[in-house]
């Protein structure tokens, strides 16, 4: 095993463990902290394959922006301990078997489709290459994303204002 494989399996284990911990905590703030570990380990997984631009964007957007939003919302809602008790699982304990079965089927299909293809290698993923793909091939996505972000701002401000009036 070379260094790339070792780093991949370290980050993969960290991401799986932190995601399981993130969805199973009682207090929301600890879930957000484990989500931070998940974001950092996914950024590390990008960096293992030399996609440093994407790795930095992941850290800036996820760890920098989205998680701060979560922390602010948790601070605003400010639940007491009695209100958190309902967070216990009350449904059937075997409900998780449905996604587990689905994942085995999908992994099997990936294994079947993976065999017999040779892999074309791209050594470095720089900001220039990603940006050229974004502006040349995905120009429509880029344009609708701007409208999408604008509508998100309008919706968020509208919802916030309505709640304040009542």
């Amino acid at each position, binding site marked *: 095993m*070379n260094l790339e*494989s070792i780093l*991949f399996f370290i980050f*993969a284990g960290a*991401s*799986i463990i932190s*995601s399981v911990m*993130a*969805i199973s905590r009682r207090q*929301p703030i600890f*879930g*957000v902290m484990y*989500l931070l570990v998940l974001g950092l380990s*996914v950024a590390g997984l*990008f960096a293992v*394959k030399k996609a440093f631009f*994407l790795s930095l*964007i992941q850290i800036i*957007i*996820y760890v920098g922006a*989205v998680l701060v*939003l*979560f922390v602010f*919302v*948790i601070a605003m*809602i400010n*639940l007491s301990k009695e*209100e*958190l008790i*309902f*967070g216990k699982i009350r449904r059937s304990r075997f409900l*998780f078997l449905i*996604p*587990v079965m689905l*994942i085995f089927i999908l*992994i099997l299909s*990936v294994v079947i489709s*993976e065999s017999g*293809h040779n*892999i*074309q290698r*791209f050594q470095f*993923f720089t900001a220039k*290459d*990603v*940006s*050229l*793909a*974004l502006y040349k*091939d*995905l120009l429509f*996505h880029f344009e609708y994303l701007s409208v*999408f*972000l604008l509508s*998100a701002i309008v919706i*968020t401000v509208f*919802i*916030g204002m*309505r*709640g304040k009036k009542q």
Partner: protein
Amino acid sequence: MVGAEITPFHFITLGLTLFFIGICGIILRRNIIFVFISLEVATNGIFLIFFGASLKVGYISQALVLVFMAIAAVEVAVGLALAIAIFRTSKTVNVDEVSQLKG
């Protein structure tokens, strides 16, 4: 599976695992904040799947990961605004108790 080289298969398998951990969280948790945290876990799995595809098809798939990051940020912003609005009107974050729209 534990080979000398990391292939797209590894990334796609890991991404699927994270995606279904997130789906489990969405099904099992009742707190609306945890529903959004699970949604983020699933979104990170989707990023890994598309990144694994980019090792095979090139840069266009990585640019799609950037597009999805922006969409995920929008989704979190609108979702958390809705969570605050729900908490203001019904004073709870339990998604089972928010059933005013039921006929």
